[in-house]
């Protein structure tokens, strides 16, 4: 890791989403709700969705975890709110990394991908880690 690794990892956008998370909370009567955890870190995440006309009408996340897992959940919610449900299936590991704008080692990668994993499991029943589907 470079000498200023934290500058790299904790870019302003990540810290911003961590300190001021978007879509944080739970929804009443969600159409889809799913919880998952990353036992290695103790990260725990729940995603709630309301779906209307095949689109994500409302989305919210709750739980606890490190800044990377929380920021990526916040960014992901922002990304899918109002979008067709079908777009979630197409989201990949690289999309998440692009949103975060950083490269991560294998341990922190799981932190970054927990939100997408939870989301895909809730919507499609896909329970593998993004990037490891079918492996």
């Amino acid at each position, binding site marked *: 890791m470079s*000498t200023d690794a*934290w500058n790299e*990892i*904790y870019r302003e956008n990540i810290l911003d989403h*961590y300190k001021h998370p978007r879509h944080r909370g739970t929804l009443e009567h969600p159409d889809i709700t799913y919880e998952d955890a990353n*036992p290695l*870190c*103790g990260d725990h995440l729940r995603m709630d969705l309301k779906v209307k006309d095949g689109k994500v009408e409302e989305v919210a996340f709750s739980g606890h975890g*490190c800044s*990377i897992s929380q920021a990526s959940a916040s960014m992901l919610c922002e990304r899918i709110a109002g979008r067709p449900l079908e777009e979630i299936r197409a989201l990949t590991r690289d999309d998440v990394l692009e949103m975060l704008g950083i490269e991560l080692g294998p341990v922190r990668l799981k932190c970054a991908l927990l939100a997408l994993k939870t989301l895909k499991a809730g919507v499609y029943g896909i329970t593998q880690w993004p990037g490891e589907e079918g492996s």
Partner: protein
Amino acid sequence: MGRTVTAGTAASAARTATGPAPAPRGFDARRVREDFPILRARVRLPGAPPPLIYLDSAATSQKPQSVIEAMSDYYASYNANIHRGIYRIAEQATAAYEDARARVARFIGAASPRELVFTRNSTEAINLIAYAWARPNLKPGDAIVLTEMEHHSNLVPWHILAAERGVELRFIPVTPGGELELAALPRLLADGRVKLVSFVHISNVLGTVNPVAEIVRLAHGAGALAMVDGSQSVPHCPVDVRALGCDFLAFTGHKMLGPTGIGGLWGRAELLEAMPPFLGGGEMIREVKLSGSQWNDLPWKFEAGTMPIAEAVGLRAAVDYLERLGMDAVFAHDRELVEYALERLPEVPELTLLGPPAARRGGVVAFTLGTLHPHDVATVLDSDGICVRAGHHCAMPLHEKLGVPATARASFHCYSLREDVDALVEGLHKARKVFA
């Protein structure tokens, strides 16, 4: 190193490479550090990674030059399989391997090298007991006592056994202060169904030093055997199996300045004698016919297949190194650092320490920092070259009991400095700023 090296001179040659042994009373961590290549860089050069401030010795220790050289010398000068070849280097390798066993056996106070089985690590040693001792000896309704502060390696093998054999698991509780509630043990043992008490000597999370002799006495009084997980004690303090009075001891090489891939199971000879083998294969047999086999003598009965020879040679060099420092001195150094850390860490606002006071712990300090996730703390520390562990440290039940999902942990060894603790404190202040 010339080609005429013998097993006996491999270690002594390595010894000269690290200079004379330090005087027993002149323990100087700064001088010790010079023997560890990975820790030698002290100055931060532009563009280069920062010098290591290694505070994760409970996960694995760093290795002195003498260990690295002993292993490379084996490969460069007398690499051969053991117990088989009758040519010169094969005999040298066999002598080096068995010499390592004798040396390590003496280090832990074993009555005989026969009582020391080399394994991959503590985990394998505990599994060996679960498979080769517990399965033939325990029946449904029997019980095993563990503690709530065990590493997963002393939980999962028993979970497997419990599910398979209907054996009951009981747990000595941990107090909020991170110590064993020993008063509960007589009650757990009272019905006479407990056949084994298996427990950690020094907790890898809390650093708690458990009263081994007392637990062993209670176990034996109830007709149970006692196994000690010495993963964090054998590397850090004097351990003498006969003084402890236990029946089995598991330990691992890579936490005691030695290489990965080698550890040990010590067991009382009569117990090991009565046990069937764990793994089947070459070397563990005396005679094989198509219809069956006859087991080899101790300790080879438990060492199937080609063993990690270079690793045994490396472990021997590590034990030589530790004994030159003196285990009393190593432990005193750990205690001094942990006392200093417990004094300085509370300077950091919102920091919560876990575990007992310095007087009852080894060189391990786990803590939480406000609402910051330990991974975030560890990542900020890493930017200054500070290596700490973050997570549950393979002790999830303990974290659940203490009510924290994860902790950050700093741990020391003979090369750790007070300045390392200072750097940690500074790094924690920085982490708070980043996430403020």
